[in-house]
């Protein structure tokens, strides 16, 4: 345990010095502020408090941003050690490869938590100042916060796996961008195209829900929208997936970090320094 903590402490310090903390916080704060400003138009008599509205738009933002930040922090985690030549020495210390990965994970999740707290916190503050009913949206914001961390952990694990597989930072960066494009952008586009082509047939009823659950980013979006009852208002894929219950999305979201980390450990075990 002390070894994991020491590993995490050292990694966090490195992230701080490499300005990763600053970059992640700046990104989250900037985008949150833009969203708050865009969402500050009067919500009218529809009933939803302003914070709940902001949470819905933060969710669609987080789907893109959280995996991106997570992959940016993790692609270098092992390939960088290999390239710097620091890995052989570390591996002769009495700590397991799983402990090394867990230490890095703890540090990177902490960086993510700081960035998310800053971004979401600011958005919440802005919403609350414009609408004193906004406190009603706090549970949804909290749900968004911790599920964002889970989503981040999934992509941190995936990033470590890619980092271990490619062994060179440049190669790992390419793979990470590919993964992000594939899972976050192309996957949804593909599903949308399939839905349109299928036009309510077998694919829409039998395959599509599973396809949504199989992608951690979609599961994250579904969970947050379903849990806040905003699915009906949501556009696009999530609207089409309103038959999927929140618990199913949550199960998928809970299993993914474990799978990603197991993958990372397996890939790391195969690295010979």
């Amino acid at each position: 345990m002390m070894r994991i903590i020491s590993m995490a402490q050292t990694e966090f310090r490195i992230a701080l010095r490499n300005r990763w903390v600053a970059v992640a916080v700046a990104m989250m704060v900037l985008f949150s502020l833009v969203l708050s400003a865009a969402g500050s138009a009067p919500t009218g008599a529809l009933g939803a408090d302003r914070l709940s509205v902001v949470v819905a738009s933060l969710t669609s933002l987080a789907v893109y941003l959280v995996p991106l930040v997570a992959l940016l922090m993790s692609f270098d985690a092992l390939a960088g050690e290999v390239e710097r030549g620091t890995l052989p020495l570390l591996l002769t210390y009495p700590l397991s490869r799983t402990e090394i990965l867990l230490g890095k994970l703890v540090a990177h999740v902490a960086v993510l938590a700081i960035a998310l707290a800053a971004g979401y916190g600011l958005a919440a503050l802005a919403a609350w100042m414009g609408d004193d009913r906004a406190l009603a949206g706090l549970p949804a914001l909290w749900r968004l916060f911790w599920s964002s961390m889970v989503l981040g952990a999934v992509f941190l694990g995936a990033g470590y796996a890619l980092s271990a597989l490619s062994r060179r930072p440049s190669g790992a960066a390419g793979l990470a961008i590919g993964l992000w494009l594939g899972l976050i952008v192309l996957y949804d586009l593909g599903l949308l195209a399939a839905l349109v082509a299928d036009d309510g047939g077998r694919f829409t009823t039998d395959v599509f829900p599973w396809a949504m659950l199989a992608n951690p980013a979609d599961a994250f979006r579904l969970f947050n929208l379903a849990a806040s009852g905003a699915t009906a208002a949501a556009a696009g894929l999530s609207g089409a997936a309103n038959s999927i219950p929140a618990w199913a999305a949550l199960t998928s979201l809970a299993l993914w970090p474990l799978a990603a980390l197991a993958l990372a450990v397996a890939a790391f075990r195969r690295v010979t320094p």
Partner: protein
Amino acid sequence: MTMLTLSHLTKRFDGLNALCDVSLSVAAGERVALLGHNGAGKSTLMKIVLGLIAHDEGTVEVLGAAPGSTRARDGVAYLPENVAFHPALSGREQIAHYLRLRGLPASGARALLDRVGLGDAANRRIGTYSKGMRQRVGLAQALIGTPRLMVLDEPTSGLDPVSRRDFYAILDGLAAEGTAILLSSHALTEVEARTDRMVILSGGAMVAEGALGDLRRRADLPVRIAVTPSDIPCSTTTLLMALPGSEQEGEQVVLSCAQDEKLAVLGRIAGLSERIADIDIQPPSLEDIYSHFSRRAGQ
């Protein structure tokens, strides 16, 4: 007590024999130097001992356990060649981290850095260190927790002469307390004075092993005798005629003879003492002995 035992160790890198039937053991308190040309397999042998890479044949036992097992890693310190650290950390932070990984309090970092002469730079980032200073951080981490076996790959590379001496003094202290030390080096003279035994690898095979005296005897290289005549050029000619196999080299008459002929030749020279101003006997140098053993087949 034996800290490290290798028997019939063989390692192949796709077709290339990096190590070939190497057997070796290092006892507690023993300092063993691993010598050999570039690419002889020294670093490969060390990485196998550390469990960083797998071997193909033979057995390796480190502190009575398998290489890379928790038990072995607990008691073994390693200094890799070209040791590297994250440039954003300070020397003290890096050593504190390594201390905690070995379950020791981080407060010992300063004392370790002082011991390798880095006390003043302890709080500067390693990225700003010179090569020798980085090497000393590597030494400091290898000293953590009085290891039972130290595996040091070219530990003195990049160190200035004074720090080299200090470093070997530290090793002497550790060996006296029972630490087994296996180090590789290309600096023959320091290895000669500071280790108990030498192991010479050549092309992955162990070609010689033993204390320097043993190796000197086994190599049986000729002794060079240089005689300065008392009266040049007259005595020179006499000496050249009287000593078969001798040659003139500048003002001296030089001949080489096998170890077991040495006394006979010296006796003959002594008989010519009125013709001789001075005599100089040069035993084979360390480099001679080393290259005698390290010459690869066909070279």
